[in-house]
């Protein structure tokens, strides 16, 4: 198709404001008479909140309000299930918010947050996803699922016994990936206020303003039409701004005090207030025939969902669907699991479940190539998806599968320099 503007190196209009430092991120906006919100977070991974004493904090001059679970009209939010409390009275991870302090200055709010006394009843915690899968371990979300296995996705294609019979070479190996933080440069920040219309306005950085609006409205018992989420410049996201972080807490404070509320995470608070990339344990067994064709693959993938569901079901589904890599394998058996633990909750992050399995399936390819004494490029050329290929889920790729072109472009670069 002939295009003139599409396909051209048009300059980004927003870049100018950014190079001059004019672009407004949520931390950069203020309103007269605003108060500052600071969250009190749980230091324990699994506990019940017996009691919160706010007396001392409230006595501090400049403190306007201290709010906790009992102050939230509908105390839940979440992208798939509303399993995450706005302010928790039942703690499932270190960093769960239990209270929020609103004060005239940030310094007062921080000092007062230290004076909020929370009496925790500690409970046994589980941090290893495989241990968490055991039936005798206390389920973290009995209302969602009877055990900590939030999700299991099986993929069955072809016949495994037939597949293994065709395999001349088999590689079996375990792989592990780690917890990753998005580490976007701009920590969470926002400004929430009730405007002249009586509407709740939240100016923030998010990946989905309309979702935030719905969750704020739900938690506070407002109509969607009474809540405005206005996205300011977003200082990086990568999946870490999909779940609610401070939005509802700030809106709640603004609603209760009728003062504009400014909140800004420190970097440390930021680490505790958004999701993480799922660490995964992957057991892979892959077989190829001596002509270098993949014939069978089995994989078991366990993803640590942490304390809340967030996107875990979708993430582990994506892991399973992509577990073969971009290769045709006629006989496949894949099982992926999302498991609750008392670790920081896992959610969306760039790559979304397909990032972890790359380590496994591409390592398997190189290991197979070595056994078969063919080059890493060659084994990929013999197996990669083309138009008409069928994936492990039985999906036929009907168009636009130019992996061959990608490999052709890469091939000339597969030469290395000298050791030193």
């Amino acid at each position, binding site marked *: 198709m002939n*295009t*003139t*503007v*599409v*396909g*051209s190196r*048009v300059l*980004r209009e*927003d870049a100018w404001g950014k190079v001059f430092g004019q672009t407004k991120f949520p931390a950069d906006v203020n309103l007269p008479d605003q108060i500052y919100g600071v969250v009190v977070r749980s230091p324990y*991974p699994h506990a019940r909140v017996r009691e919160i004493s706010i007396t001392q904090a409230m006595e501090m001059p400049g403190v306007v309000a201290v709010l906790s679970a009992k102050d939230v009209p509908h105390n839940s939010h979440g992208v798939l299930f509303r399993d995450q409390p706005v302010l928790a009275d039942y703690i499932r991870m270190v960093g769960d918010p239990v209270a929020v302090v609103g004060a005239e200055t940030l310094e007062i709010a921080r000092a007062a947050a230290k004076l909020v006394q929370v009496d925790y009843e500690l409970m046994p915690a589980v*941090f290893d996803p495989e241990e968490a899968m055991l039936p005798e371990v206390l389920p973290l979300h009995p209302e969602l699922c009877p055990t900590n296995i939030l999700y299991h996705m*099986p993929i069955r294609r072809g016949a495994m016994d037939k597949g293994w019979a065709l395999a001349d070479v088999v590689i079996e*190996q*375990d792989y592990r990936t*780690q917890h*990753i933080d998005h*580490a976007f440069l701009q920590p969470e920040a926002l400004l929430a206020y009730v405007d002249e219309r009586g509407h709740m306005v939240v100016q923030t950085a998010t*990946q*989905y*303003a*309309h979702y935030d609006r719905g969750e704020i409205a739900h938690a506070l018992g407002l109509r969607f039409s009474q*809540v*405005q*989420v*206005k*996205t300011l*410049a*977003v200082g990086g*996201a990568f999946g870490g701004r*999909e779940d609610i972080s401070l939005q509802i807490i700030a809106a709640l404070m603004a609603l209760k005090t009728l003062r504009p509320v400014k909140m800004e995470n420190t*970097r440390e608070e930021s*680490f505790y207030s958004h999701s993480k990339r799922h660490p995964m344990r992957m057991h892979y067994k892959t077989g190829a025939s001596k002509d270098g064709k993949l014939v069978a693959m089995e994989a078991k993938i366990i993803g640590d969902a942490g304390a809340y569901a967030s996107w875990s079901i*979708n993430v582990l589904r*994506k892991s*399973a669907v*992509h577990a073969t*890599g*971009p290769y045709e394998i006629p006989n496949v058996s894949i099982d992926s699991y999302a498991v609750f633990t008392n670790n*920081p909750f896992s959610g969306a992050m*760039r790559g979304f479940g397909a990032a972890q399995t*790359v*380590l496994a399936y*591409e390592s398997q390819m*190189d*290991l197979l190539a070595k056994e078969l004494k063919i080059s*890493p490029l060659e084994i990929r050329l013999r197996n990669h*998806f083309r138009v008409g290929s069928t994936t492990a*889920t*039985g999906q036929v790729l009907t168009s*636009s*599968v130019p*992996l061959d072109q*990608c*490999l052709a*472009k*890469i091939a000339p*670069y597969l*030469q290395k*320099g000298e050791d*030193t």
Partner: protein
Amino acid sequence: MKKRGIGIGCAWYGTGYGNGFPDVSSAFVEIHDDGSATVLTGAVDVGQGSNSIYAQIAAEELGLESQDICVYSADTDVTPDSGTTAATRQTYNTGNAVLKAVRQAKSRLLDYAAREFSCPTIEGIELKAGYIGIKGDPSRRMPLADMVFKARLHGQRLISAESSTARSTPVDLETGQGAPYWPYAFGSQMAEVEVDTETGMVSVLKVVAVHDVGKAINPTQVEAQIAGGVAQGLGYALLEELELQEGRIKNPALSSYLIPTALDVPNIEAFFVEEAEETGPFGAKGLGEPAMLPTVAAVINAIDDAVGVRITSLPATPEKILHALAVKKEELAKK
């Protein structure tokens, strides 16, 4: 000793929410009296540049320049819902919604213009370089602004609202069979590394990344997405790890949770392959997430190529590499 190795990694990625989840984007468009236009969408530009992509799509369709288009996004009082900026879906999904909306507003203009030019079908009308006129007759054209203004005086309003939905179906719960995502994006990367056999330190010397984008709506932004993805992939492969102790984060700081600096990222050669995705706006599909996928594999495979050890758990720290080298040495000694 410092040993070099190269590695290759391939990846694929099903874009969109997938599994039959309604994956809908919306857009409002208004063409103004002076021939400029405003696009409203709920799609948040998180820095990747989606607003600029929508401006290009709208400008292309209206025969305007990108700077003639104002894109305003993600204000719930003003803009329609366009879904999450996630799942590598905003160029594709919201791009499609913007294109549909622009076409709808444009078709009203074309209808009006066809009458003005006494042309029995809008097929005979074209928008080009700020003008509207009869295809094949350069003498019969007028500035777009004049036509819009005329239309306005006749009570025509060139506004529109459209949605676009990606195709996806749920998979079978027992067998996982189904067509969960569309489209899929592909990519391949090569990494060259140098491994210090005494310290286990890995230097990445070069990365070449080739990605399938359907159509590069903005090549500069494509390259930028690729380089950013590679850098995150390098962090994932070599540096980053949240250290937990009983659920507590031991390194909740940028001085202890280490991401790559400018000196840790090598020269990145970014290429893209354009094979039009027929369902995408101007043939485009998404790139955001795929850009970071192959890097991990390329680096881990390159380490093996360099020093003959297979690192199976991320990140590939110097400790793990030295340990693997020691184990290998022991095994060789036994033989």
